[in-house]
């Protein structure tokens, strides 16, 4: 038995090895290099110069950094619950059938990011876009709200909400794995749809939802880059300047790669803290249920 377990671990290690090596080379190593650069003044054109913690201190006084961080957190706070709720609703609705509808839900996810952003750029055109024309047709002539800070933020949230194919597929699979006997039992006991959802579906799918929420927070903090760069260019007035865009601008437009590296590490730590907080809440919730 022991030999079998050891053999299984060895096989798993071998299977995971390519990914571990790739992660170490493509993620771990660059992350460590970025950490090193964060303590230097580096412009990609001349050798890095050690400046200690100056960049981290400068971040404290950089109002645009705080704006970008705030925008990123706000985006995650709006987009993650919306995406999860919508994906869950669709998974529950479509788990028994509707192949065409399932394909339609998944389709926006396979569109390349740049093409998807350009498509939305056209959809959101304030005068000639379908959305503006549709609103005009129903009597809302003023589509200037799209150019307001909240309009632009809302548009970017809406854009990412439609790209929920991966979350949807995982939730669909999770729902189909739930034992039907439980639902039949609930039905026999006269439980309504809401009761069934609250007492059966949600508790059983909670681990999957928690995992997806953690993953979606990570993704949401990063996926804003392309739409913010292509559609809003960070505007109006920095309302859609998210951390990835601000990092890019500092690194590749202003040649402040050391400063950009410091911001990247702050973003990494914020992401880790948010995921840790979610897992902590989930653990507490599970402990309370088990008690």
């Amino acid at each position, binding site marked *: 038995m022991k030999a079998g377990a050891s053999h299984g671990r060895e096989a798993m290690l071998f299977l995971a090895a390519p990914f571990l090596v790739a992660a170490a080379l493509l993620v771990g190593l660059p992350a460590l290099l970025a950490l090193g650069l964060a303590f230097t003044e580096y412009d990609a054109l001349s050798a890095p110069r050690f400046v200690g913690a100056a960049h981290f201190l400068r971040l404290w006084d950089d109002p645009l950094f705080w704006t970008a961080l705030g925008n990123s957190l706000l985006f995650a706070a709006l987009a993650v619950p919306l995406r999860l709720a919508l994906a869950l609703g669709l998974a529950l609705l479509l788990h028994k059938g509707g192949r065409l509808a399932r394909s339609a839900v998944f389709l926006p996810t396979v569109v390349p990011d740049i093409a998807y952003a350009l498509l939305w750029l056209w959809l959101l055109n304030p005068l000639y876009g379908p959305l503006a024309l549709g609103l005009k047709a129903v009597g809302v002539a003023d589509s200037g709200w799209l150019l307001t800070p909240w309009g632009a933020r809302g548009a970017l949230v809406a854009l990412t909400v439609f790209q929920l194919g991966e979350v949807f597929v995982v939730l669909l699979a999770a729902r189909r794995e739930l034992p039907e006997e439980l639902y039949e039992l609930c039905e026999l006991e006269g439980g309504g749809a809401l009761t069934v959802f609250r007492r059966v579906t949600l508790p059983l799918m909670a681990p999957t939802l928690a995992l997806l929420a953690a993953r979606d927070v990570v993704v949401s903090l990063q996926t804003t880059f392309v739409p913010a760069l292509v559609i809003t260019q960070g505007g109006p*007035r920095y309302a859609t300047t998210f951390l990835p865009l601000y990092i890019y601008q500092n690194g590749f437009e202003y040649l402040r790669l050391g400063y950009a590296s410091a911001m990247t590490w702050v973003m990494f730590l914020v992401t880790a803290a948010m995921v840790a907080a979610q897992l902590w809440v989930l653990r507490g919730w599970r402990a309370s249920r088990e008690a």
Partner: protein
Amino acid sequence: MARTLRWAAALALAGAALLGGCKREEMTPEPARTGTPAAPIEVTLQLFGDPAEVGGYRQLIAAFEAKNPDVKVRLVPIGKQKDHMAKLTTAFSGGTPPDLFLLNYRRFGQFAAKGVLEPLGPRLEKSTILKERDLYPQAVEAFRHGGALQCIPQNVSSLVVYWNRGLFQRLGVPPPRPDWTWDDFRKTAQALTRDEDGDGRMDIHGLAFEPTLSRLAPFIWQAGGEVVDDVKDPHHLELLNTPSLEALRFVLRLQRVFKVTPTLEEAKSENHEARFAAGRLGMLLNSRRLVPTLRDVPGLDWDVAPLPRHHKTATVLHSDAYCMSRASRAKDAAFRFVEFALGPVGAELVARGGRTVPSLRSVAEGPAFLDSNQRPASARVFLDSLLSIRRLPNVAVWNEVETRADVIVEEWFYTVPPHGTRLTEADSTEVKSGQEAGGSMRRLLRQGDEVNALGQELTEAVQGILDSAPKREAP
């Protein structure tokens, strides 16, 4: 154990392949074997432009290669200037910069200050094809750093007024005069602005321009103001003095009072070039780079006119130059291309394409540029503008200053205060500077006036960047 070894070998191979894939491209051509013709030396050239502009450079390269079969120029065209800059940065960072690239003088400082450019002045001195005295000094001066000429300018463009002759004629508006004033300019724009279907939205706009610091600069100079305290070593912006405020007030009134320019909604829905090409815009402020695109628009009858004058005449320099990477391993071949591109043959070829106002005087003042059979008919406007041309700073931080500033300028230009504008048709020249307002600059800043708000916000936003500029080297 044997299986472990097999896995280890496979991983080692994968790692080797991965690292091999990251190896730098060898830039030096392989030496030719005896008895075989030498492989051409490859020179990479990176630039940005729309398809019409890039097409002109492809013709230039073809002509060069026909005369220089031992050199192969590989063009790396980029669509937008921002992406061009980002790619240049990453290429330098990765140790594989292009041999040659075009840079605007407002963005070249960050490269020059780091010493990654091969100074082309000494090569120009030795050249038998091209001489510095043959080039317009206004453009040459913009590419000096620490007193040394770093890059060689290919063009000496300026901001001018593109006007739709067909639209002017249809609406019975007199064409721009060479010595027109701000008032003439504003009245012309008003006469062109029309709501033809009466739906409350203008169908034709008299004027459009990108609300950026570089577009505001000539108006500030025309009013007798300054953008910065010292163009060679800027320490602060000068947008809160009386002449600058007069210019800003004039520009803002065009948008808020006379409503001759597209609104934010309209500007974001359709870019100004497309609006002009579609015949729904009377006048557009732009540099020479718009010419190839407009020539391709069938049926569009257009010309150019100088910017209007106020207390002074002034326009802003737009100039790009060929820069060479210090790390290039094909410097001689690359410089041969520069000599060809900027010399009589190359400059004439590019001039005929319409993209540039050649930096080479003989071509700029010759038939290739002033060809009366080609639009714009008044091409000489670009040359006449040289008399009053001024430039913006070329220091290392200026690119960042403009990038930060332009967001604020756009917001200022399009956003009417919540209580509505206090500007009126009557107050064309009334300006309250800090002194005239009877108080300190701090008091002026507290007033929150919609005109001086720009100067306040820009100063707040970019002063730190200007302060962080490296000390300028003595020439």
